[in-house]
């Protein structure tokens, strides 16, 4: 009798795992993959737009933020803009004094970028500048929490959705 009860408990436990937990882990993982793909697509679109038009408007950026938040996660967006510093004191006998890839770049980071965006409703870039956008999730997704429960490997700062994209601006904005 005791043996039968133990067998019953084990079988219920196994059934719960097989029917409940594993499919949930699999679906949660797929969900994370879909979110990763969605965020990758929108990030590429934002960078492509900046490359082709030479500017990022507040409207573009806000719609980008809304689109990535629609995946159901919260994200940390890091924007770095490497501005081409044209150094006029460089001595040269050639026709063009500055070439893209040759000069010093100075960086504008997220806070400065957001301030400029709020003040002027757009951030104007020029030919040769570079834009780097990095997005990572800040919440714990279902897959992450399930994995933490089972594997206890994930630390506090691990992300499951990380996207980086960059581009060199091809036209002067404004």
């Amino acid at each position: 009798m005791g043996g039968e009860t133990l067998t019953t408990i084990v079988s219920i436990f196994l059934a719960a795992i097989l029917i409940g937990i594993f499919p949930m882990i699999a679906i949660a993982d797929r969900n994370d993959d879909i979110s990763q793909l969605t965020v990758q697509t929108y990030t590429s679109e934002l960078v492509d737009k900046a490359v082709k038009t030479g500017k990022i408007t507040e409207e573009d950026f806000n719609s980008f933020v809304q689109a990535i938040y629609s995946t159901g996660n919260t994200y940390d967006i890091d924007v770095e803009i490497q501005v081409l510093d044209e150094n006029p004191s460089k001595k040269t006998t050639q026709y063009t004094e500055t070439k893209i890839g040759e000069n010093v770049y100075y960086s504008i980071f997220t806070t400065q970028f957001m301030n400029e965006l709020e003040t002027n409703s757009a951030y104007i870039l020029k030919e040769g500048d570079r834009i780097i956008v990095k997005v990572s999730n800040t919440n714990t997704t279902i897959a992450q929490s399930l994995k933490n429960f089972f594997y206890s490997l994930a630390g506090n700062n691990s992300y499951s959705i990380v996207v980086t994209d960059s581009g060199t601006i091809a036209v002067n904005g404004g």
Partner: protein
Amino acid sequence: MRLQNLIIIFVVIALPVIIILSVYVNYQVDTANLRASYDNKFLSATYDMLTAFQLNTTNDKYSTTSDSLVRDIEASINTFSAAFAGSLGLTGMSKSDVMTYVPALLFTMYDGYYIYAPTAKVANESDKITYDHTLKPYVYYTDEYKNGNKKIIINYSLDNYVAVYYYDEDNNEYQSKAGYLEAITKNLNSNGIYIDGTWDDVNKTFTSINSIYYNRVEIDRDEILIKNVYSHKNPDGTTTNYYSIKADGTIENFNPIEKESIEASAYDYYKEAYEFTYWYNNEIINKFDNDTKNKLTISIDNLALPNVRFKF
């Protein structure tokens, strides 16, 4: 044994196998995704490099001189390393760190190439050889063919333009020419260039040409209008054509010209290509042995030309 027990035993055996297999498959999927992601980042860094190269050369009228070209290439290499590091989220990575993962960058130009690859540096006092990426000197697409004391050097390009240098040591003969190679034919119904005209065998050129055919299509000269003609309706109802407006906006009355120029670039090209190919085949390649002749003679047989007849 009861069915329940059997099921439990089956699950206990099968479950670990399933878990291990699914972990393995996940690793494979993650590896494929990561490889695709790196490929993508590499391609976009290459695209940025070429955009920078294009922008630099477009804005520079001295872009074809070698010093300026080297500067453009080095600038685009800097753009590549910065773009690649940026796309990986490692903007602080230096150029030499990025280039550790890039074996070589090859810039294929019209008639040669530049290569940016690791070069062994001169050994220092402790006898260690270090490798640094440097831009090697320009290498032309060139090949040399020898037959006894006859030698031919051909500089190739990405299209059918070649420069040929021929030297015969026995007769101390030296010839050199450059031009476009095309298959030539004496048969109107064959592919290649066919010219109906008077051939001067001494100077190896055409003294007069009636018609030129290429792949059985006649090449004609086009008369084109290159000046704008302004029509002005006179008070008496007639129309006068002018072809120039003065700086102050008044119309200058010249005789209307409808055929200002003759567009003959295709015509001239086929004539010059025929003469150059004739010289190449008959004056130069003919002097070599059969193996070299078979390899280097330009003819219909060794050029894969489509057998088409154009219809209009």
